[in-house]
């Protein structure tokens, strides 16, 4: 027998009848296993966002507080997608505000059917997965671009320092002290270059890249550094 997929739902509803009904419908759905936790119109402290795949937020009784509550719930639940449910249809402008405040979808109680609710839950979860995957990919890309820039910039002076350190010892043996002094000056200059690069890294305030090799970009440390503090 094939195992049913499991989704964990946080249902935030002050309207107890609505909350109990939705919980019962979802819990008894045959094809998918929904684990539903029903709470009032606030998110309790013991809620761990990692424990939920989706949240249903009933905003019908919140009136003017709905956007503020939605924003707070979003802050607590972080990456969990939120579906706002209301009793009356709202204007397009208000729906846009709900989305901007963190809702992933918007449903109206009046004509809400179980199939529609499940479709919305599954779609929100899937959209969120894709979004989270993209965020991770983007983060990795940025880290690689930063790593590339750091390696590229620092390895130039490091090469000069390590190279001349290798050459300086035979100079001592041959008592070529003028040559030793010249090399020490070069090394000192390269250390200053490295300090300058590290200083720029600590002042990065924007994200600009430059082409490194074919198909590769690295962070443009110079252009991404705040100039005002220089």
């Amino acid at each position, binding site marked *: 027998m094939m195992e049913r997929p499991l989704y964990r739902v946080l249902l935030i509803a002050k309207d107890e009848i609505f909350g109990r009904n939705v919980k019962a419908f979802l819990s008894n759905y045959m094809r998918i296993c929904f684990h539903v936790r029903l709470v009032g119109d606030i998110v309790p402290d013991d809620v761990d966002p990692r424990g939920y795949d989706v949240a249903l937020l009933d905003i019908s009784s919140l009136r003017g507080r709905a956007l503020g509550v939605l924003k707070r719930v979003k802050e607590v639940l972080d990456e969990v997608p939120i579906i706002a449910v209301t009793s009356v249809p709202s204007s397009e402008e208000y729906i846009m505000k709900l989305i901007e405040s963190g809702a992933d979808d918007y449903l109206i109680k009046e004509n809400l059917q179980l199939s529609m609710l499940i479709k919305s839950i599954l779609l929100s979860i899937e959209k969120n997965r894709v979004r989270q995957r993209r965020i991770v990919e983007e983060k990795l890309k940025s880290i690689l671009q930063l790593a*590339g820039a750091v390696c590229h910039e620092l390895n130039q002076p490091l090469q000069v320092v390590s190279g001349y350190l290798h050459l300086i010892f035979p100079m001592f043996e041959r008592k070529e002290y003028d040559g030793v002094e010249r090399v020490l000056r070069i090394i000192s200059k390269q250390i200053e270059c490295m300090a300058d690069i590290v200083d720029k890294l600590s002042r990065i305030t924007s994200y600009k890249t430059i082409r490194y090799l074919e198909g590769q970009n690295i962070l443009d440390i110079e252009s991404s550094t705040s100039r005002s503090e220089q």
Partner: protein
Amino acid sequence: MKEKLVMVVDDEEQVREVFKTALESEGFKVVTAPTAEEALDILKTKNVNVFFLDLNLPGMNGLELCKLIRRDNPIAFIFAVTGYGSIFELVECREVGFDDYFKKPVDLRLLVEAAKESFNKLERWTGTKK
């Protein structure tokens, strides 16, 4: 082989200088260039068989330069030297014809060894080594 001529191409002057000093101290003749374009100009008049090329050059990059050198001189030894390396870059380097790949900061003894080994092979191939 009369003259063991090596070319170093890197846009960082100090890197060119330190490579040149290390190679010259081992008896090699060294010509340097800050860009691929200048390297190609030098190659119109000089016969070079061993190269150390930085990959990230202003203008034409080291990969393109390697392709052009390899086209005209199939037996040359061409080494990539890079400040930022990855496995993808290594594969690309092998595809365009680099013989080996060094990540900066590279131990100068490795570069010298690579140059010595290259000239040994060239002498064996061209019959100038007894």
